[in-house]
């Protein structure tokens, strides 16, 4: 194999590969990226056995071939090369070495045979559809903060992507929850997604997927089976196993009878919460909300650290209410609001609270109160 490739293209491809490889693995080849050159393009493949990413980039291929080298080392080298450099990769020198040449820099990296590189078994996808990057970006960006990190409830360690019945018919829905908060985000159902099996997309996959979604109008080809999910752009294919578990019936925990309605500017609200929470020394900082006729008083009382209070003008017309929340949870859900005011719907100080953006029900958040 002998190829020449532009540094920027190489950096992007290897960057994605090195973030997929498992850093603490005991199988050496899993730390490597498989480089395959053919025709006028080169592909970079990396896997941790749960996720596989293939990144294709145009290159001048002098001699086709394939080899594997440490993804992290190659990425570090390319990152440190000057912008605009032309990089040559060749395996024709010392056996078992890949030569990396750029300008006057020369590196020789140990390789492992390409035959040892694990290839993810292909899957029969039962649903295939295409969705614009911005639609998927909204679905996952707005839900991923609620993914649980509790390993004992492994079925919550991802985003549940499925087809659901929305107010105006079927929708493509993403739900994540850790038991303290929940995010439910809907999008129009893309053509071909009907009958798609519901899958739990693991946290790491969600993180990797995000890198495919930067450009608004890229069409993302999505394929789903019971066990795998695949997201593809013309240049990158991301294949991942899904979490083998049953996502809990979230619909029964989304409150429907909450009537006390608070409307507030989300940014002002978040800033005020952040300010008052400063005085708390606890790891999970509790903020108390006192609601009264168009008035919201946020307060924190930490006996050994201090106290803080801030008043906000809001729209609230129901009876008095005092309710506590974890400041971090409030900040996270408030930061999901980007267009209109945040609308909170409360029931009592012990019941889950619902939050949405204006009257838009396509993004709904639930947060559990905290005893204060």
């Amino acid at each position, binding site marked *: 194999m002998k190829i020449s490739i532009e540094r920027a293209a190489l950096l992007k491809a290897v960057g994605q590969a090195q973030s997929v490889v498992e850093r603490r693995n005991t199988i050496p080849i899993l730390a490597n990226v498989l480089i395959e050159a053919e025709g006028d393009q080169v592909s970079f493949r990396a896997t941790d056995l749960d996720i596989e990413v293939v990144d294709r980039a145009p290159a001048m291929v002098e001699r086709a071939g394939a080899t594997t080298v440490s993804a992290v080392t190659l990425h570090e080298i390319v990152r440190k090369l000057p912008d605009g450099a032309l990089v040559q990769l060749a395996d024709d020198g010392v056996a078992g070495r890949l030569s990396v040449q750029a300008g006057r820099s020369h590196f020789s990296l140990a390789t492992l045979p390409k035959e040892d590189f694990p290839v993810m078994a292909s899957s029969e996808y039962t649903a295939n559809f295409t969705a614009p990057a911005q639609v998927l970006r909204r679905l996952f960006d707005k839900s991923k903060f609620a993914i649980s990190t509790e390993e*004992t409830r492994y079925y919550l360690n991802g985003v549940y992507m499925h087809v659901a019945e929305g107010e105006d018919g079927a929708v493509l829905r993403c739900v994540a*929850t850790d*038991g303290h908060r929940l995010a439910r985000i809907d999008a129009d159902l893309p053509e071909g997604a009907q009958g798609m099996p519901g899958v739990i997309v693991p946290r790491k996959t969600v993180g990797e997927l995000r890198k495919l979604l930067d450009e608004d109008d890229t069409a993302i080809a999505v394929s789903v089976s019971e066990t795998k999910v695949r997201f593809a752009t013309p240049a990158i294919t991301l294949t991942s196993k899904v979490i083998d578990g049953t996502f809990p019936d979230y619909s029964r925990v989304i409150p429907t009878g909450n009537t006390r309605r608070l409307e507030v500017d989300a940014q002002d609200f978040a800033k005020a919460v952040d300010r008052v929470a400063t005085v708390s020394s*606890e*790891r999970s900082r*509790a903020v108390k909300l006192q609601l009264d006729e168009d008035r919201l008083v946020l307060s924190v009382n930490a006996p050994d650290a201090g106290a803080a209070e801030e008043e906000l003008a809001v729209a609230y017309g129901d009876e008095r209410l005092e309710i506590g929340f974890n400041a971090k949870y409030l900040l996270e859900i408030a930061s999901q609001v980007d267009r209109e005011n945040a609308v909170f719907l409360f029931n009592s100080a*012990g019941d889950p609270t619902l939050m949405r953006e204006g009257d838009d029900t396509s993004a709904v958040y639930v947060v*559990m109160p905290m005893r204060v």
Partner: protein
Amino acid sequence: MPALCRDCLTRFDSGPRCPACRSPRVLAHPELDALSIAHVDCDAFYAAVEKRDDPALRDRAVIVGGGHRGVVSTCCYIARIRGVRSAMPMFTALKLCPDAVVIKPRGDRYAEVSRLIRAKMDALTPAVEPLSLDEAFLDLTGTERLHGAPPAVLLARLIRDIEAEIGVTASVGLSHNKFLAKIASDLDKPRGFSVIGRAETAAFLSGKPVGLIWGVGAAMQAELETAGIARIDDLLRWDRKELGARFGSMGDRLWHLAHGEDNRRVSAHDPVKSISNETTFDADIAARDRLEGHLWRLAEKVADRAKARDLAGRTVTLKLRRQDFTLLTRRQSLREPTQMADRLWQAGQALLAQVAEPGPFRLIGIGLSDLAPATVADRTADLLDPGAALRAEAERATDRIRARFGPDAIVKGRSLR
């Protein structure tokens, strides 16, 4: 050189025997009057209590330990002569010493005797740091004018009184810091009194294995070995920064200890770091429902203790001991601290469910660590477990019933498994 008779407490200028009572139990050391950090360690404590309570056992080998199986918890010096050691499996111990009297530990009784000893220590200084029922650090700095005698005399009197009035013997280590005092108490057991002075510290440590250092176990020893450190002298060749870089905070501590420096205070109020409970089974158990039954009982005990101290913990640790005595531990961080038996059990049960090994196991334990005050515990309910709030209320009600009518007044069915 100042000297002290350990029998009649007469102080004199060194000699082989006490000029007053002719006892040979003379303690002479150049720094005898200048040292004030002590470690007092009872000799074969559990066995000694048993012998005290039943004089018929006096001349027999006594092993205190768990039933037919289990391990030796303590053995008397007669059994030690035959090669029995604590932590040895009981069957091995009985092979070495078949005529030994095996006694099941009576924890409450030992705690009772320990309290008597503790009271005597407390009369000497407020700075008593108990390490367990049978050993404690004492800082006697500045007590000389109060008691009219230097620390060495107070300690000799303490030991003499414990022996005469309580009926168990103890050994004392006296030095200028905790690390050396602890080592010293072990030098001359039983009924020992050893002194390590400042002047002799370096010479004393020279040539000693690193395993002598408190906190350096087998794993740490192996790690040090790979760095070419086997003896305390080897540590002296290292630069403090390099040791710190290689072994973290432990490296820094090792460097100081190797130089005979230890500035930890003798603290009576060491904060609790974890609350745990475990049980060794009469016969190994593989059945998950029976393990869960044990787990529930232990979770309830841990929760009881947490509630009694107004504490809660963020990390739940499950502990299982395999048949070959190796330990398996699994831990989980909770999103907020808890002191509820129910949450503890839920987490422990989930951890147990993830243990793929079929067992059988000989021990199960559960613990709560990363402690926080109870005021920040259990403040957020679980959306996905609406029954949890009800169960928490039931647990609080149960606690009130048990407080009034005794711990067995109301129990969960699963604790009977």
